């Protein structure tokens, strides 16, 4: 939801996302974000990422500028999350040689509620990392602040 604005992730997990993007360059990487939402003050919700669920990009035809996660991958990620007492709260992917900004294609294919982390990878070097959420009316992505800090389990 649009009023949830902060995502907490440890520096180690953030580095793993960056490393995944470097590893699959020049193709896009992708994976699940496993975590939970915790209500904090004023009914605001803080989303914490506790684990990653790296996936294989299923877009064999255009892996340089597209990623795809099948419904079976989603079910597998949900199962992995449940086994750890967590939920799938979002997805990450890389933009090789492009900014960490969601494209029209990203928006057209997005689900609400999920956090979408994007890492820009330039010439195999990971750079900016951002996170986004689709608004309720599907018209835009809102940037979500990433808090790099240790997340209590």
């Amino acid at each position, binding site marked *: *939801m649009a009023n949830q604005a902060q995502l907490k992730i440890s520096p180690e997990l953030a580095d793993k996302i960056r490393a995944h993007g470097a590893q699959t360059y020049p193709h896009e990487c992708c994976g699940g974000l496993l975590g939970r939402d915790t209500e904090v003050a004023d009914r605001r919700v803080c989303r914490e990422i506790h684990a990653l669920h790296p996936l294989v990009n299923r877009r064999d035809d255009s892996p340089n*500028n597209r990623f795809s996660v099948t419904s079976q991958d*989603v079910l597998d990620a*949900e199962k992995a999350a449940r086994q750890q007492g967590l939920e799938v709260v979002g*997805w990450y992917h890389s933009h090789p040689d*492009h900014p960490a900004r969601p494209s029209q*294609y*990203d928006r057209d294919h997005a689900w609400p509620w999920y956090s979408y982390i994007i890492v820009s990878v330039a010439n195999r070097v990971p750079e900016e990392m951002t996170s986004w959420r689709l608004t309720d009316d*599907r018209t835009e992505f809102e940037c979500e602040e990433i808090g790099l800090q240790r997340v209590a389990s």
Partner: protein
Amino acid sequence: MSVKVIIPTPLRVYAGKVESTEVSAKTVGEALGQLTSKFGDLRKHLFTEDGKLRSFVNVYVNDEDIRYLSKENTPTRDGDTISIVPSIAGGFV
């Protein structure tokens, strides 16, 4: 015909935060129609503006993908479970 519809996590905020709901329907299309009548905010996330199921919305009847059955005309029987499962896509450009 009472059919259970399982709502995916990202859409539960638009459905009273419930995990599933019961509807009375003879086909998958009817069940989804009843679901979106019950929870109107779900409609734009499941269907395009011209009323087609969005490409990244996958619907199963008792674990069978309706794309390999009769799509939204797939008949439902009393006690069936319909699952709505996301697939995820994106990329730059």
